[in-house]
């Protein structure tokens, strides 16, 4: 049965319409994964010698045992952000003669082979090999590795039990800080006690039963939970939310694009992913604090232009790059309704332009770090308005991936393709090049005027540019419609 499930997932991947585009991204991810694995392997090999060097008087094994508790907590925290809960499209299976327990075991079993588990093991296994090479008792080391595997699996399944609960996340964070604090102020050495505990896993091979039993228990807790969830009504029944209506009649003053603007505001406010995006964009305003405080750069460094484009254009890139995929669920309606494509794009560009202005206004207090900061942000905002708004809309015409709106934005790669990474280049690199060129050839002031000037000039030709973008959308229209219909990608 598992064979069929694997086969199905394989097909859903390779038969997806955006395969070629998704593939490029996946290849990049695979290279990244290989890089991670290789560097972690080297870390595993080097770990023994590093410990030996930093703690010359102690047995590296003892030291490692003391730090294991940090590893466990940090791993849980990292997985909270990065590890996806196992999912499978269960609904079609429920009507077929497939045992629910089989489905559950498959989903849970698959997560056992998660990349994160592998990542931990490529540290510990080489470390174990080095131990053996240093005449540590072979049997103890091997059984210790088994305990580590048990711990890794427990972490894996505990993570699903935590199930993205914010409370537990902050609890873990506090525990981590607490342990570190106690240690730092020499109040109480948690690691020493826990270290002895973890060391006994190595010294006393019988104890290896403990982590393994723990892994099995967490597995079955997950099993019980999931198994009881695999019902048609559980997967079909959705939380019905009552409407949060708000008065948007003020948008009327924007004339013919008002209905779209209202729609976009509702889109943003009523869907989880877009809402997180807005909050993340707003939070990015503090990004400047990191850079402005660094004296190494100086107030006119190109880095500040990067910051300027980034801050004033954060919503532009975050939201803009997925236009028109935000509307993917009902794109065929938008294309057959009485909506001229250009109006549709105009309203999107209006929304993004407003965001640029808002982000600029929010960045005004940075004038505290010198008038240059304000001047840079102002010309960057102009550049964003003039060049980057049409540019990002144009890049949007390459979007073919559907976005399901009610999923959260954290670690959500849905809708992301290679194009989304490529667009960052012209958006940020182009103005940087302009700036660097003119700054070193002429002066800081001229360079800023050039950036701002380019923005103003292109803004004047905005209508023409939008016509061009509209043409691109019309050309790609059929591909978009069929791509957005695809749910399994």
């Amino acid at each position, binding site marked *: 049965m598992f064979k069929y499930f694997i086969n199905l997932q394989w097909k859903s991947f390779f038969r997806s319409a955006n395969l070629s585009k998704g593939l490029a991204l996946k290849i990049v991810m695979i290279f990244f994964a290989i890089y991670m694995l290789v560097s972690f392997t080297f870390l595993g090999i080097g770990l023994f010698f590093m410990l030996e060097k930093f703690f010359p008087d102690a047995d590296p094994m003892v030291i490692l045992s003391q730090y294991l508790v940090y590893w466990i907590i940090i791993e849980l925290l990292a997985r909270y952000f990065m590890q996806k809960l196992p999912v499978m499209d269960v609904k079609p299976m429920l009507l077929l003669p497939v045992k629910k327990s089989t489905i559950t075991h498959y989903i849970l079993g698959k997560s056992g082979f998660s990349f994160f588990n592998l990542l931990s093991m490529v540290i510990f296994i080489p470390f174990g090999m080095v131990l053996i090479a240093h005449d540590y008792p072979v049997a103890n080391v091997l059984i210790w590795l088994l305990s580590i595997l048990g711990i890794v699996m427990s972490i894996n399944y505990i993570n699903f039990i935590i199930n993205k609960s914010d409370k537990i996340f902050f609890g873990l964070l506090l525990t981590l800080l607490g342990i570190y604090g106690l240690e730092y102020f020499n109040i109480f050495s948690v690691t020493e006690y826990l270290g002895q505990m973890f060391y006994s896993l190595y010294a006393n091979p019988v104890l290896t039963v403990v982590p393994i039993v723990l892994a099995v228990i967490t597995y079955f807790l997950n099993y019980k939970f999931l198994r009881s969830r695999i019902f048609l009504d559980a997967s079909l029944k959705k939380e019905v*939310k009552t*409407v949060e209506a708000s008065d948007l009649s003020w948008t009327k003053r924007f004339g013919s694009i008002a209905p779209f603007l209202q729609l976009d505001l*509702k889109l943003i406010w009523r869907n989880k992913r877009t809402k997180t995006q807005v909050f993340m964009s707003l939070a990015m305003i503090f990004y400047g604090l990191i850079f402005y405080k660094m004296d190494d750069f100086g107030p006119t460094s190109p880095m500040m232009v990067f910051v300027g484009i980034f801050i004033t254009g954060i919503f532009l890139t975050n939201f803009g790059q997925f236009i028109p995929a935000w509307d993917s669920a009902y794109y*065929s309606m938008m*294309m*057959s309704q*009485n909506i001229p*494509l250009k109006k549709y794009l105009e309203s999107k560009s209006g929304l993004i332009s407003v965001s640029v202005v808002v982000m600029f206004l929010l960045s005004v207090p940075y004038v505290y770090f010198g008038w240059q900061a304000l001047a840079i942000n102002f010309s960057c905002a102009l550049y964003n308005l003039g060049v980057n708004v049409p540019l990002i809309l144009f890049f949007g015409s390459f979007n073919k991936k559907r976005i399901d709106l009610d999923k959260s934005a954290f670690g959500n790669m849905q809708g992301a393709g290679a194009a989304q990474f490529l667009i960052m280049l012209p958006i940020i690199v182009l103005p940087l090049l302009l700036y660097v060129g003119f700054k070193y050839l002429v002066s800081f002031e001229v360079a800023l005027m050039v950036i701002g000037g380019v923005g103003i000039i292109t803004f004047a030709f905005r209508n023409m540019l939008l016509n061009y973008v509209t043409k691109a959308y019309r050309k790609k229209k*059929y591909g978009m419609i069929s791509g957005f219909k695809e749910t399994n990608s």
Partner: protein
Amino acid sequence: MIVAKNLTKQYGGKQVLNIENLEIPKGQSFGLVGNNGAGKTTFFSLLLDLIEPSAGEIINNNVQVNTSEDWKPFTSSFIDETFLIGYLTPEEYFNFIGELRGQNKADVNALLSRFEDFFHGEILGQNKYLRDLSKGNQKKVGIVASFIGNPEVVILDEPFANLDPTTQIRLKGIIKDLANTQGVTVLVSSHDLIHVTEVCERIVVLNKGEIVRDIETSTETLQELESFFAG
């Protein structure tokens, strides 16, 4: 009103639609029947320029649909749930469509009041998003939305499927009324032969992408269709 000439659609070399000549005059209620894969939805999608014709053209009121957008103001449609915006309430959705079609809130409300029994008290004033409505109710919203703004052409794909009997009967009355008294060209597709024969003045049967029957509805039509599909 609508003319399709030498229209073909192919997917990977396989022909799914081939219509040499089809003319639908203004004010006709036009029914499209056929088995699965006959090309009904393909034809409607071509008519709405949602897919690209491999060859040929469709002209909607003197506008060629895949070269100009000018057919949009007088054409409205409901094909499937992807025509609905899940995060809007039904009222908001109706008003949005209304604004797209140059109707103010009062116009929209006047139209909606005519459909109160059609909605059966389950659509308006529920304070629910469209994504949380049942499939049948979603369909009702989509169908009624396609009547907003006095369109001259209304295209409905499988409008009777998923509806309860009461609503089906009401819908038949509405479609007849649109074509007969308001001069609207209504295009309907269906698997249900009884419904189409009751509603449509003219029925075209598609089979494997080609027109195999073109019937002006009479009392014998249902029998003729049944014998065609039986074998």
